[in-house]
């Protein structure tokens, strides 16, 4: 089975992240950059599928030169190789443009299964799997907490607010996963050393037959026109206990419809 895992490099969500003042895009220079946390679960799931069914796992990243660090790091978990879509015209790409580029790259890779995290910790729009499914004419099974593959089909348990739904589709398909699906492995020291030698193929927009003005800030269908910092948290209600503290606490909770 050929599995492609979408991996995105994002600013470390453990430290303060900012938007750039000049073009309102994510400032990727200010904080440490890491693999999008949810993608690690997708990589883990792909590796487990490879262990169970054989095949190969390829990572697909669209990102700046610096994303190569995250690719090596992701490879140290065990995937076989990676494809890095790298082009000066890409920064500022909106979700439709990103999906156009990734779909073109996926077409060259011909996967049986595409895995990705349910969201990225920077953008958090959750639309890429759907857009890719639309562009590639395959099924999108999103929000998986469990995944099984048999013959030519994939079945997931889709996590919902109330419980879960069981969804089944023919492959090829794209599946996005939540962090409830598994516990990602730590890279072994051998994995770290092996990652250095694994093939990473770089593709440009020209390689994918996409014009520069279809992507990036130039081709963006949406634009963040301004941003401001979240105002500091206000004081909230303070209840001083004068014998009736408990009652007033419950009254507050009742007003807010918590009880």
């Amino acid at each position: 089975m050929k599995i492609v895992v979408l991996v995105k490099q994002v600013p470390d969500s453990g430290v303060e992240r900012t938007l750039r003042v000049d073009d309102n895009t994510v400032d990727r220079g200010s904080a440490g950059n890491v693999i999008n946390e949810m993608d690690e679960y997708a990589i883990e799931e792909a590796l487990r599928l490879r262990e169970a069914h054989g095949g190969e796992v390829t990572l697909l990243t669209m990102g700046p030169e610096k994303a190569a660090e995250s690719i090596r790091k992701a490879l140290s978990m065990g995937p076989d190789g990676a494809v890095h879509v790298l082009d000066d015209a890409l920064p500022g790409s909106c979700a439709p443009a990103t999906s156009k580029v990734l779909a073109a790259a996926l077409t060259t890779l011909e996967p049986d299964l595409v895995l990705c995290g349910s969201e990225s910790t920077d953008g958090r729009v959750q639309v890429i799997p759907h857009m890719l499914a639309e562009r590639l004419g395959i099924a999108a099974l999103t929000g998986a907490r469990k995944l099984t593959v048999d013959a030519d089909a994939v079945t997931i348990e889709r996590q919902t607010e109330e419980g879960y739904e069981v969804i089944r589709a023919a492959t090829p398909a794209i599946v996005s996963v939540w962090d409830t699906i598994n516990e990602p492995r730590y890279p072994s020291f051998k994995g770290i050393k092996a990652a250095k030698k694994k093939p990473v193929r770089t593709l440009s927009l020209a390689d994918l037959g996409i014009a520069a003005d279809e992507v990036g800030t130039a081709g963006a269908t949406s634009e963040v026109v301004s941003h401001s910092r979240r105002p500091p948290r206000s004081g909230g209600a303070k209840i001083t206990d004068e014998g009736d503290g408990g009652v007033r606490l419950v009254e507050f909770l009742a007003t807010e419809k918590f009880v």
Partner: protein
Amino acid sequence: MDFDHTPEQEQLRDAVRALGRRYGHPYFVAKAKAGEHTTELWAEAGRLGYLGVNIPAAYGGGGGGITELAIVGEELAAAGCPLLLLVVSPAIAGTILARHGTGDQRDRFLPGLATGAEKIVFAITEPEAGSNFHRLATVARRDGTDWLLSGRKCFISGVDEAQHVLVVARVEASGRLRPALFLVPTDAPGLTRSPLAMEIVSPERQWLLYFDDVRLPAGALIGGDPQASLPALFAGLNPERITVAAMGAGTARYALDRASAYAATRSVWGRPIGAHQGVAHPLAHAAIQLELARLMIGKAAALYDAGRDLEAGVAANLAKYASSEAATLAVDTAIQVHGGNGMTTEYGVATLLGGVRAGRLAPISREMILNFVAQHVLGQEKSY
């Protein structure tokens, strides 16, 4: 001069840190207080190849050096889980076997050390001789092709967790006694042990060992020849000092992390206590001592891995000295910054006291390092 680790070494650091944090100091303390071992952490770190980073790749190890093993030791300690047996099993025994073991000994023991599945502890110290191997009273006599080992050892870490103990004894060769190293199964007939009660919060216990004519086959002698033993013994000492220094530096980092977080958030009279120089300066001072020690650890490991043993010997001693002093200072400062909370189990800093204090005594005391520097670096007459 290049102060950067390679990307692979940085990845190793990140990976070990993540693993260590999942266990954390409360795990370590709970195991120690229950008289249990950090079995799960050891097994997982071993499976991931972190404990065998320095074991040659031909035997299933990582093929890295002491630099990598020091990274592993430091990061686990910085996560609140200093693993003492890392200093003993892969650092000392692993190095000695890889560099001076016979082919059979390497085949038999290195794969187990590479995965952490087997542990070999190290016994040199004796009640009368300390670590002065010229005065060791544990002696092996020939009996046919076998050896009979007799004597006693003290302060031997983790014997109850290990399958073998690497014993420094003496044998008679050309009319005089010279050091010789033997691999002894911990369940060998004639070997008995009793625990030595210590005031250290540690999952690794200390033991007294008694050897009463323990019969060993010829293959138990490291290198197969008593002549091989002195270089073998020396080969193990630098990795021991460098990794123990790394463990101390990691412990210091852990303590300073805790203290800095506390000082930045604990508010008295409307300001965090860290805003007061009386609190901030001791922390800054400890942080400086720690970083200086870490630099020397990195230098010692780099020299050792470059095969520059003589220079590494000096650097390893300096690193060990600096690290144990910095760790003692960092833990003491962290406790002081925490006030009364510093002595509680919950805040997890006083639990490090015994460990860092022992670090000023073992595996080599600060005084013996001062002697070494006075004699070998400054050219002074030997004082003992």
